[in-house]
């Protein structure tokens, strides 16, 4: 495994802000949605995730320092970090932990303590938001903010299948869930932007709206119940003079023009080759929004370093100059991505953009 040390790299977050505003930048910024602990440990020997959320604030700061350093060392202008709403949801867990949904009826809905959530969010995360901000290295800023989009948080309380059933059993409750949770999101984002967003140069949440062949809800429902709530957030983000990046997986082509116009996003991340190569997203939407992404996570797992290198160069040459591009994996770097594969991608981009000259 080869880690090319580069003494001359000076991070400059303004590059990626330009990209999010759909401007091509020659020193193409690297970008990842999430990088797992294994890859970080194998590259830097540190385990920031073990420390970042420690009750001991000195330890927590050390964790965040290590986290920022990883991104800096690898040639990123920003570090990605979301503070996730699903992490504080009372009786959540239906999305990621296979728990039974806690809202099934109007009565469950009326009883659910939605109004406590914003307070809970800041009680839980405020100290860590501060530590994260205080350890930010010169020239860098963050991408992220309040994690989990509306669809994911609603699923975490109801469960995907039960949500689909609710649509047919009690359409009013189905609609009210999105509205009520939308209010919670708006409240949290408002305070987050006012008090904690200085360290963030691009705001983002992740909300997987699709899968291989289509969207997980009907496109009409996405337009009616989800996008107007996204818009409340993007409007606030824009008032703070920051661009908004949406991370959303799946085949979204049927609804993507509405996502751009109704939700007014500036940039989008997530791509998979079984749906469309990154360059297809850039061809289709590169005139309107910045595109973040690149190498399908599957490729990083299965291909040799040389094949990854070829894939990256081919992809970069296809998308070069077509609006704002930030480059990295199409999804994330979970622990099952071999560190060699990740490094092959990063080193190729850095060589291509001239870091090693």
């Amino acid at each position, binding site marked *: 495994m080869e880690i090319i040390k580069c003494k001359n790299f000076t991070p400059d977050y303004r590059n990626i802000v330009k990209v999010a505003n759909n401007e091509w930048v020659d020193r193409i910024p690297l970008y990842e949605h999430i990088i797992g602990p294994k890859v970080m440990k194998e590259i830097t020997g540190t385990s920031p995730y073990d420390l970042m959320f420690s009750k001991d604030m000195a330890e927590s700061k050390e964790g965040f320092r290590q986290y920022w350093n990883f991104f800096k060392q690898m040639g990123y202008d920003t570090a990605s970090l979301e503070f996730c709403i699903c992490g504080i949801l009372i009786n959540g867990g239906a999305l990621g932990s296979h728990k039974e949904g806690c809202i099934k009826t109007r009565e469950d809905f009326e009883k659910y303590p939605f109004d406590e959530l914003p307070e809970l969010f800041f009680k839980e995360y405020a100290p860590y938001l501060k530590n994260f901000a205080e350890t930010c290295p010169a020239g860098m800023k963050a991408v992220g903010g309040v994690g989990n989009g509306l669809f994911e948080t609603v699923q975490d309380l109801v469960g995907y299948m039960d949500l689909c059933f609710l649509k047919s059993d009690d359409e009013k409750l189905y609609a009210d869930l999105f509205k009520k949770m939308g209010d919670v999101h708006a409240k949290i984002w408002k305070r987050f932007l006012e008090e904690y967003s200085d360290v963030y140069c691009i705001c983002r949440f992740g909300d997987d709206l699709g899968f291989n062949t289509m969207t997980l809800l009907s*496109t009409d429902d996405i337009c009616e119940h989800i996008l107007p709530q996204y818009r409340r957030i993007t409007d606030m983000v824009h008032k703070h003079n920051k661009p908004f990046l949406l991370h959303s997986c799946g085949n979204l082509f049927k609804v993507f023009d509405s996502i751009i116009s109704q939700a007014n996003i500036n940039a989008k991340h997530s791509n998979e080759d079984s749906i469309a190569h990154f360059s297809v997203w850039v061809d289709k939407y590169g005139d309107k929004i910045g595109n973040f992404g690149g190498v399908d996570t599957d490729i990083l797992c299965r291909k040799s370093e040389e094949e990854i290198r070829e894939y990256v160069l081919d992809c970069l040459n296809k998308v070069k100059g077509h609006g704002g591009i930030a480059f990295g994996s199409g999804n994330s770097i979970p622990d099952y991505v071999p560190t060699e594969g990740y490094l092959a991608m990063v080193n190729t981009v850095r060589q291509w953009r001239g870091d090693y000259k």
Partner: protein
Amino acid sequence: MSTTLVEMSEFLQKGRVKNVKELIQKALDEGIAPKTILEEGLLSGMSVVGEKFKKNEVFVPEVLIAARAMNAGTTMLKPYLVQEGVESKGTVVIGTVKGDLHDIGKNIVKMMMEGKGLNVIDLGVDVSAEQYVTAAKENDADIIACSTLLTTTMGEIKNVVDLVKAEGIRAKVMIGGAPVTQDFCDSVNADSYTPDAATAADVALSFCL
């Protein structure tokens, strides 16, 4: 075909449990055989939804509510079918492979297979090769169906195929999920890959005939 059954099939496609149940009662009162009700009222409706899903003409929620109406209908009909000696068309053991927690696709495949009149035993998520094979033996299953959504867990499918061969059980291994391809299926010698749940149910049925 009886208008009651045509109506039943239409209500099933819209996922209307109450109407489907009422029409089953009406059909029974009219003296229609339970097996005919199952095939021409319920399974036919589910096939229409499956075909539309294959062509991306309906969204997942529509498939799920139709499948739920189908299940409510078959549960209601079951005692009558048993009385008539109608047996399920085959048995499937299904699960998401070890290390993988994605289950929406697996649940849809399960419902679609049930919609073809198959008996499906759901092992949930994070299922090891041993668990599939043990359940297949215990239930004399015709099929083991493995779902996987992560590149890393695709390897577990090979373990399932190898264990099925090593144990000499008769179950066919069907595989699917976002990263799975026909090439991968061939490389691990699984019996079938299909890209969507409706085709999976068709293939499963053909393995049981």
